[in-house]
Structures are given as C-alpha cells and as structure tokens.
C-alpha cells in the first residue's frame, strides 16, 4: 500500500507570474509498476508544454494526476493554485480536458455532445448556445453538427472532443494525445489552433507520441519509463541532445576533421564521411567563419556550410538513449 497525496492542503492564491501548473517530485506507483517517477516541472501562464514520450512513458498518468482523477503516490502538485484532489468548482470551471480516447456519447449529435459538456461546466443558456456554435465552427464541425457522433470519422471525433474541451473557454487546457491516429494535415490544423489559443493567453499541457510535434511547443518535457528525461525549449533540447549547436561542413576533397578540434568554440567533431563533417560548437553563428578559415588554412576547400538541425526524432532518440539503456 502506498502513501497518497502528501502535499500541503491550503490553496495558494495565484499571481500573474505564478506558473499555472507546478509539479514537485511527483510519483505514481501501481503496486510494483512505476508509472511516473519523481517528476518536477512547471507550466508558465500563456505557454504550451508538450509532454513527449513513447506509449507507457507516464504521460496520461501525469495528466490524470494534474486533473485530479488520480492521486500521486508522493510529491506535490498544484494547478491554478490548488491541489488537484481538492479542486473547487470554480477552479474546475477553468480547466479544460480532452481525454486520450473518445468518451462522448455516440448516440448524441455533435451539437448535443458539445452542449452536454458545456452544461457540465456550468454554461447557462443563452451563452451555451453561442459558445457551442463558436467552437463547432472553430473545429470545422458546424456543418456536421446534426450528425451523431458515431457517424463521424475518427478525425472528426477528435475535433469534436477538442470542441468539448474548449466550449467553456478554459484558462488551462489538458490535452491527452490529441493528434493520435490523425492525418498530418489535421494534426497541423490542431496545432495551429493550440498556438492560437496560447496567443490568446490560454495555457496548454499537451501530450503526444509524435516527437516532431515538440517543435510547436514552448517547452517540452521528455518522459521515458515514467522519468522526466529533459525539460526545455525545443531549441535547448536540440542543443542538449547533440551537446551544442552543430555545423555541417562539406569539403571538395577528403578532409581530416581532427584538424578542426583546436578551433575556438568547437566541442566535438564527427566525421560522418571523408568529405562531410558534423562539428559541435558552442554557437553555430560564431563558429562558422572560424571553421571556414581553419579549413582554408590547411588547404581544404569548403563547398557548403550550414547549421545542422536534426529532426526531433533524432533529438528524442539521443535524449532517451541513456535512460533506455539504464532500464534495460
């Protein structure tokens, strides 16, 4: 038997600077299974935090703890200034939640479903009718408002759930794998909508399995085996994964990369081919002129040089590699 919810009980008043979500050393165990292990993170007001990790990494457990449906085994959680298990009605009205799976009624139409959820969050008529229309238009489902949910495609169902999560205009939105199983076009549209919400002052915590979607977030938390492997902006994550900013240099003739190690600001050199070098630097912008000079000085000729931007799949793989190895 594990100890649940050891955090303070009093609600702390929010200030504009306070992060809307504060997680300190939160863990959740299911008997012998560690679902979330000692996670610490903040979500600042008006930002998007992407929680990225493979299936079973603890993303949904983290969201469920933050929405108050699951107690932490240990650690402290605070959302909108309150402990999730003691959310007041007022705070709940400010939270939006889009679950991982379709949980709406299949027999109700799109409009009836959104109206039902709006009622749950206390929206009174006539504002409810107006908001239902607005969010259905927002997710491009207004034309399909009279269709029963079970008649909608998978993508439309996800958009319907998003409409439900947005209908009461929440301050803080928890979205659990909103793009799972959707085509790239639709994923793009959903992320555009998230960024629009962020720009409108909303705060979002979005989980996803699609590592590439980290690009759309302000901050990214990388989870693996329940542990927080990294928490930073997408750019910072790239730097951390590769050990700095990487410059890709292609030369006309084969060139010995070891000759560049002495150049100021160079941390590492990876000779991926006789004429291709990946050079890890402190700052790519400053390092490139120095690198070009160094190549010329030693008789080489540079055909091209640019900052190398690895895909987030590569970044993610590099970040979780040590953790996976440790777990293995």
């Amino acid at each position, binding site marked *: 038997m594990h100890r649940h*919810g050891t955090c303070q009980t009093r609600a702390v008043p929010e200030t504009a600077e306070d992060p809307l979500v504060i997680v300190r050393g939160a863990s959740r165990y299911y008997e012998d299974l560690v679902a979330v292990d000692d996670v610490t993170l903040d979500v600042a007001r008006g930002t998007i935090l992407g929680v990225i990790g493979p299936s079973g990494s603890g993303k949904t457990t983290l969201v469920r703890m933050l929405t108050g449906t*699951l107690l932490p085994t240990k650690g402290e959680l605070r959302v909108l200034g309150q402990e999730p298990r003691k959310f007041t009605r007022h705070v*709940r009205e400010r939270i939006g939640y889009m679950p991982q799976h379709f949980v709406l*009624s299949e027999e109700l139409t799109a409009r009836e479903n959104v109206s039902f*959820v709006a*009622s*749950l969050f206390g929206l009174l008529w006539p504002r409810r009718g107006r908001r239902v229309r607005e969010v259905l238009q927002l997710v491009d489902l207004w034309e399909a408002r009279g269709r029963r949910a079970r008649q909608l495609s998978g993508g439309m169902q996800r958009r319907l759930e998003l409409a439900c999560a947005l209908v009461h205009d929440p301050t803080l939105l928890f979205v659990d794998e909103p793009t799972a199983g959707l085509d790239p076009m639709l994923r793009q549209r959903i992320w555009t909508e998230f960024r629009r919400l962020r720009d409108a002052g909303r705060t979002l915590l979005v989980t996803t399995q699609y590592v590439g979607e980290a690009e759309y977030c302000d901050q990214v938390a990388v989870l693996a085996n329940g542990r927080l492997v990294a928490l930073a902006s997408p750019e910072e994550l790239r730097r951390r994964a590769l050990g700095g900013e990487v410059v890709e240099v292609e030369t006309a003739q084969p060139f010995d990369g070891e000759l560049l190690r002495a150049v100021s600001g160079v941390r590492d050199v990876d000779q991926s081919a006789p004429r291709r070098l990946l050079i890890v630097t402190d700052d790519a912008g400053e390092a490139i002129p120095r690198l070009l000079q160094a190549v010329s000085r030693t008789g080489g000729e540079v055909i091209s040089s640019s900052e190398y931007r690895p895909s987030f799949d590569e970044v993610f793989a590099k970040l979780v590699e040590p953790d996976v190895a440790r777990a293995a």
Partner: protein
Amino acid sequence: MLLGLLKSLTRTTSFISKEVLEVVRRPGALFSLIFGPFLIMGAFGLGYSGQYKPLNTILVVPSSAGLPREVSFYQQYVGQSVTVVDVTEDVNAARDRLRHQEVDLLVIAPTDVEEKFRNGQQSAIGIEYNELDPVRDNYARFIAYRQVQELNRAIIENTVARGQQYLVQTTGAQPPVQLSPQIVAAPTRAELRNLAPVEPNVVAYFAPAVLALVLQHMGVTLTALSMVRERLSGAMDLFRVAPLRSLEILVGKYLAYAFFNLSIASAVCFLLVGLLKVPLLSPPGQVATVIALLSFASLGLGLLISTIVDSERQAVQLSMLVLLASVFFSGFVLPLDQFIAPLRIAAYSLPVTHGIQLLQDFMLRGDTNHGWELGALAGIGLVLFLVTSVTLRRNMAPA
C-alpha cells in the same frame, strides 16, 4: 448562490436530456421498452387460462365388486376435474398406460367394499398417479381425496337407499327420525361466499404482478447499463474533471429513467384497464404512488449495480439475477408464506415483492391491508439511493 443553483440545475437536466435521447435513439431498446411489456402482458392475458385440465382417469373395478361398468355412471360423481376415460378390471394394463403417461390417475376399487362395510370394516381404494411436478402432485392428491369422498358418499347413499334401515335416535320422548340416504351420506354442505370485491380471475390477478415485474426489470436493466457504459468508455473521467457532483449525476439519471418508467407504466395501465378490462378499484393516485415508489426503488437497484460492476456483461448478468430472484421470491409465482423466514426476509428486500402486493390490493381490492409495504418500498428506495450515492461518490473520487 442563485447562479450556483442555476448551474447545478443545468448540470442535472443535461443528464436527463442526454439519457432520454440516448434511449430514444436506440430503436431496438425503444421497441422492447414500449411494446415489449405490453406484448408480454397481452400474450399472458390471452394465452393463460389458469385452469388445470381434467385428470384422465381409469377406474379399475374388479368384477367381483358388483359395481357398474359404465363410464357414464362414474362420471356423474367425479365432477369436472376428472374425466373417466375407461373402466376396466385389468390393473396391469391400466398401470402400463399410467406409466406411459397416457392417463393421469388410476383409481382401483376394492373387491369387497359392501361386505367389509357391513362387517364394520374400512376398505382401501387405491389411487395411483405418475407426477414429477410438485404442484400437480398436490393437485392429484387433492383430487384423489375428493374422489374418495365422493365415492364414499355414493356407497353410503346406495346402501342406505337399498336398506332404508338408518334411523337416528333423538333425545327425549320424541320418536326416531328417518333420514334420507343423501342426508345420511352428507349431513353438511358448503355454501361459499368470496368477500373480495372482484371475482377471482387469472388475468386480473396476474396483470398487476406482471406490471410490477416489468417495471422493476426495465428500471434495473436500463440504469444498470447506463452508468457502466460511461465508466468503461472513460466518460467518467471527464465527469471527474468537470465541476460536477455525484449527486447531480445521480439525480439526473433518476429523473431521466423515471420519465421512461412512469410513461411506460401509464401506457401499460391504460391498456390493462381499457383493453384487458383489469379492474381499477382504488383512486388512480394510489396506484400512481405505488408505481412511483417502485420505480424509485428499482432505479436505485439498477444504478447501484452499475456502480459496482466492471463490465456491461456483469451488469446484464446481475440484472438477470435480480429478475430471476424476483420471479421466484416476490410472490409472483409461489406464495411468500411457503418460504422459510430467511428467504422471506430476502423476498421483502426486493422492491417488486411490495409492488406486486400493493398493486394487486389497490387495483383489485380498492385498498390495502398492507399499508406498511408503502413505507417499506419507500425505505428500500431511500436506502438504495443513499448507498448508490456513496458508491458513486467513491467512484468519482481520485483513485
């Protein structure tokens, strides 16, 4: 304060409309809800006579007994509950037919009735039957007993008529009275008077019971499935995040399904009274009260099931178990006083037990001598509401 109340009302009513729409949009469920109960009752009313068929009987009369051998002679004594199909002296052949269930009863007359009678001895009439059904076994015993009584009466009458020798010595100085053979054979007769306001009638008697059973079953089944579906689909997680109290969900669901139960009960009552001519002797309000309380308790039972099971299959299984228990222990088929005390207590914990008693009383007697059962029904409903409320609250708490 007012805003909070308005929001709470909005949440509750949202569940009513959701549940009603979900049920209405399932045509199969709708069909079985609206037409199913009436079809069951109609088939029952039209198809069940409630009468036992006469027992086909062979009389085995030895030739030495000196008794008549015509079927018609015996038929006049045995009445309508027995059909004498044969009079024979071959007891083995008759037993064979009984064994093959070609006949229901074998009556074996003694060989020397008259002689034994004159000697002041009793003769034994053999009655044989071949029955597994305990109810029909009892019926056969009763019929056999009655036949023997009738036969005894016939013998006494016959003997008295032949001899004219039975005189009764009265007290005092009055001369002995000569009595007719019929009076000697049967000095008393029964004159029956049923004080019930309506003549016993199978359809009228069982219709309120079927109505109670259908209402309970419908309430339990619909609600048992409603919440478990939400729990399994994950909708409950959304409810847990929303500013929603378990009481708002519960009241919303009660009201939605009460709407169905009461609508269907009204329609069925109308058809029962209007079409099947089942009497309604009490003011309709009393029947409505019973139906409302029965619905309240049944919905509570269904909702309780839905908060404790882990799958739709389990919900259906438990609903069926409740139905099975209701058929056996509610007094619907077997009288309650035939059960041992612990089972009677279990029977009285079923809403339908009280529903049947009260609906039969109010509809067919115009009043009830079991007023406490109204309180019991309300009590069961209240306890179920409270337990379900606690269970749902626990379900909605952070895990």
